Each structure stands twice: as C-alpha cells, then as structure tokens.
C-alpha cells in the first residue's frame, strides 16, 4: 500500500509542470505555430467564380484560434481586406471530396473556397484579374501573418471532370436502349416472360361467358398521351378479341373523348379479326362523365345495375380507384386491375382478384402488341436493371472488405 501511495505522489508532482505547460500553450498566443504550406489555385469544375485556398494544419488548431485570409488585387498591396475568418479546427480537405477524394491525409490540411467578386462587391474587376492572398493565424490579441503570398485566377472550366461517371452512365444507357430498339425491329420475336395477369384475364372472360353477363372495362383518368392509357388500349384489344370469340358482351367506359374513339377503333378491329364484325356495337364503348367524381358515380351505377361478371380497371387511376373497386367487389364480380399508379395499388390488391403491378402493365402491353419500340425499351430497361443489381452486389461485397473504390466511382458530385 505504501509503495502505491508513494508512486502516486511522485507521479502527481512530476505531472504538475506538464499541466502548466499545456495550459500555457493553450493560452499564450506566443506559442501559435503557423502552418507550413499555403497555396492558392483556381477551383476546378466551376463556372469561374471562386478560387481555392489550402494550407497545412497547425498543431495549435483549436476552437479559439482563428485563421484569417487577406486578399489583395496587387502583389505588393497592403493586404488589408479580410476575405474570410474561420475557426482553426474547421474546414479541412475532408469536406471537399470533389477535389481531394477520400485520401487519408485530407484531415491534415485546411481547404476553403473564396468568391473574390463578392468580396470586392460592386467594384469593377477585370476577368483576368489575379488575386493575391495572405494567411494569418490569430488567437486573442495576437496574430501571426505568414510571409508566403499565394496567388490564383478564377477561371471557368469547360468540363466537369467529376461528372464523368454520370456521363458514362448516360452513354451506356443510350447505347443499350438504341441497340435493343434496333434489335427488336429486326427480331420481333424477342423473349418476354409470361405475365401472370394475362392468364387471369382469360379465366375471367371464360367465367363471364358461362354466366352470360357483360364484361366491364374501366379506363383510367389520363388521356391518350400517357403510357398507362396506351398500355390499357392494347390490353383492351386482347380482351375484345377474346370476347368476340366467346360471343360475350363487352362494355367499355371512358372519360376522355379521344380515348373513347381510339377504344372504339380497337374493339371494332378485334371483332373484325375474329370474323364477327356484325357483333360490334359502337354504343357499348361510351363516355360516361369527364370529371373524377361524376365518373365514379356513373360507373358505380352501371356496376350495380348491370352486375357485370368481370370488371377490368386498366390505366392510371387516382383517388377514385378505391370507390370503383369497392363497388365492383360488392357486386361479386371477378375483378382484374392493372395500374402504374403506385399509391392506388394497395387498394386494387386488396379488392381485386388479380392486379398487374406497375411496370407489369407496360410489359403486358408489350407482350400483347409486340411493338418493337415497346419490346426494345423493355429489354433495354431490363439490362439496365441487371447492371444496377450487379453494381449493388459487387459494390457491397467490395466495400465490406474495405475496398471502397466502387463506392466512390458511383458518387454524385
């Protein structure tokens, strides 16, 4: 025990001077150690408005020690204009990965950007003006100014090198998309997996025929310009064709006159293909209302009055989706929905027997129409998704083993 006490005292006594020096170092500005290096350069990848300054960190960096930057337009000037004042324990190179990346030593250097034109607010400055800088380290009343004068000119850059990754992706995606569209034109029998929902469509139509009740096709609210409506039209074509074969009754409700006339054409053509043009009745493809809630009310009325055996909701739907599908479900109809309106999908999934989710709608339409543009785009997007999956898997594995280059390769600046 005694030994222990003794050692404690001895250590305590010896550490007193150490404490005192630390306190003195922290308080006395005489001990300020100025940074060794100080450089200025044009900020890369910018519009030519800023210059960058960097200097090595000093051992005296602390929250109450400041760096002051002085700017002058003349090398032999007085350097009286203060351009910036920062706390000396802030603004390291680590804050600027767009210039210094993720090197280990970045924490040993300070880095700031200055906007000289703003500092000389209102003064006319030549475009090619070279700016001169001096650095000072200050704490309390004392200040040490470095002798080094750093200079730089703010220049506009013609290429943003850090966006090269973005540009590469742009080029790769463009190439893939172009390739597959051209490819699909030459080879229209490209493989597409079967879309589950399309079998369900046939099944529903079969049942409707057995029951001898009509089939109702409900368009979404968007006009002919949207991909959802275009997809809905090609699915309608398929349904109409089957209906003509089965000799059942199809009703198509619309809220847009252009969508209505296109639908009429498509249904007519399908009946023609089936060899039964006589069975086509244009009055079965009709406009019920043009606004959201009147549309809902009118379609709901048709459902409760005519009690169709199958309801199809295909296209882009808004809040009305829920009311439509609910009314249909209470009449006991088989319901099939297809929409890329993700906010409405939950309601279709819980009230319909089968739902085409999001991009499945486009795939179904490409599958049915075999249109090269749709097929090619679909395939190109598949390849894009495959590449993303690859990057995700590889990147995570490499990052987990400490190799972060792939992570930095996909960084957006």
């Amino acid at each position, binding site marked *: 025990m005694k030994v222990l006490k003794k050692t404690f005292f001895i250590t305590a006594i010896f550490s007193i001077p150490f404490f005192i020096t630390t306190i003195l170092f922290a308080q006395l500005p005489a001990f300020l150690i100025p940074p060794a290096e100080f450089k200025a350069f044009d900020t890369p990848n910018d*519009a030519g408005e800023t210059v960058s300054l960097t200097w090595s960190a000093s051992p005296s960096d602390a929250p109450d020690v400041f760096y002051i930057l002085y700017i002058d337009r003349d090398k032999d000037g007085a350097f009286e204009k203060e351009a910036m004042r920062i706390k000396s324990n802030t603004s390291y190179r680590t804050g600027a990965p767009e210039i210094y990346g993720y090197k280990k030593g970045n924490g040993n250097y300070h880095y700031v950007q200055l906007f000289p034109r703003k500092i000389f607010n209102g003064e006319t400055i030549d475009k090619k003006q070279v700016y001169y800088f001096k650095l000072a380290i200050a704490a309390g009343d004392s200040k040490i100014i470095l002798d080094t004068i750093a200079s730089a000119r703010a220049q506009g850059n013609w290429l943003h090198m850090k966006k090269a990754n973005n540009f590469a992706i742009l080029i790769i995606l463009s190439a893939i998309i172009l390739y597959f569209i051209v490819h699909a034109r030459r080879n229209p029998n490209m493989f597409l997996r079967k879309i589950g929902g399309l079998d369900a469509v046939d099944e529903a139509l079969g049942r409707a025929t057995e029951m001898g009740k009509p089939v109702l096709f409900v368009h979404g609210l968007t006009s002919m310009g949207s991909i959802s409506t275009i997809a809905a039209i090609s699915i309608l074509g398929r349904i109409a064709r089957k209906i003509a074969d089965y000799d059942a009754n199809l009703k198509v409700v619309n809220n847009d006159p252009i969508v209505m006339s296109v639908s009429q054409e498509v249904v007519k053509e399908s009946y023609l293909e089936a060899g039964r043009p006589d069975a086509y009745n244009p009055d079965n493809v009709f406009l019920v209302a043009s606004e959201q809630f009147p549309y809902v009310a009118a379609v709901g009325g048709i459902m409760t009055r005519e009690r169709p055996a199958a309801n199809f909701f295909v296209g882009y739907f808004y809040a009305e989706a829920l009311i439509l599908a609910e009314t249909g479900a209470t009449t006991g109809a088989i319901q099939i929905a297809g929409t890329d309106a993700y906010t409405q999908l939950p309601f279709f999934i819980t009230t319909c027997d089968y739902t085409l989710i999001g991009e499945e709608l486009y795939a179904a339409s490409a599958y049915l129409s075999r249109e090269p543009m749709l097929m090619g785009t679909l395939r190109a997007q598949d390849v894009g998704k495959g590449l993303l999956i690859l990057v995700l898997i590889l990147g995570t594995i490499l990052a987990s083993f400490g190799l972060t280059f792939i992570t930095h390769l996909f960084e957006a600046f």
Partner: protein
Amino acid sequence: MNFLKRTIPLIIAFVMGVLMAMQYYVPHKLSQNLLEVVSRWDRIIAGFAVFIGAYSLFHLHWTRIKRKVEGWGYSVFVYFGAIITLIFGFLNGGKFFWHDKQEGTMFDWLYSYVQVPAGATIFSILAFFIASAAYRTFRARTNESTVLLLAAIIVMLGRVPIGNYISHYIPAVADWIMAVPNLAAKRGILLGVSLGAIATSLKIILGIERSYLGGGD
C-alpha cells in the same frame, strides 16, 4: 409543308435535348448563362399552358351546354363560378387588374369561402369509403394481400398514440417496416421508374417517341 410540320419539331427536340443534356457537364459561366436564359424561357412558356387547360375546360362545358347533354345544367355553374371570380379578380378591389394585386377583396373572399372549403371537403369523403371498404371488401384473398393487410394494420396502429398504449413494440415495428422493407421496395421501384424516365427522355430526343406531337399528319 411536311418539313415544317414534322421535321422541324423533331430537329428542335433533338437540338434542345442534346444541348441541355451536354450543358449539365459544362460548368463554364457561358453554359450557366445559357441554362438561366433557357430555364426562364421555359417557365414563361409553361405559364401559357395554364390557358390551354382553362380553354379545354371552358370548351368542354360549353359544348355540354350547347348540346344540352344530360346534366348540362351543372355546367352552367362552372361558368357562373369562373365568371364571378374573374370579375372580382379583374376589378381588384376597385383598383383594376393593371395595378398590383390588392388584399382582402371579394376575390380573396371567394377563395377562402368557396374554393378552400369545397376543395378540402371533396377528397375527405374518401375517408368514409375507406371505412366501408375496410368492412366490406378488404380481404386477405391471397397470401400477398394477407401480408399487405397485416403491414397496414401495424403501420396504422403504430402511427397513432393509441398504438403506443397497447404496446411499445407497435410503434417500433411500424418504424422498422417504414425504414427497412418499405424503403427497400420503394427504392427498387424508384430505380426502375428512373430507368424508364431516362429511356423515355432519350427516345424523345432521338425522335423515336413522337406522341407529344399529337396525331394527324
């Protein structure tokens, strides 16, 4: 004529598309100035689109009234509402429309006591339909919809104070659902949708996708 109607638009779309895509990679001041000017022009053009929407709506209701379509009487109220608002808007509290907008006029009154209550109420009726659908039609028909409904119930409980009373785990599980499986699926969807958007944009620039030109010749 075909040159004016078809070729020139395709050239304009191609030039603007390539120019603006490349602009992104050029930080130079000239390129930034181009972006500023073009974005300003584009937002001015977009302002005119407001009138296209207005015209279509007026036109639609006018045809209804003219043809005496069933329920045409209701279309009269569209005109009534619009004209009265336009009159008070242009009167601008007696200072007329070429002066700055005045506050507290009849125009603002119409907004506060017609547009706001009616607009806010219309979508609230969906609350009732959700409740009735919850009772009558939200069914766990398949395994998938069972999972959906279970997740929905947990989130609904976890997002209101009562969930916390039942068990502290409910909000925690709800938070986890939001921040892990929900996030993952939404990110997957977002990536897919973004690829689709890029593909569509490319096709527009390259003139493969022309539906924006409308039908006809």
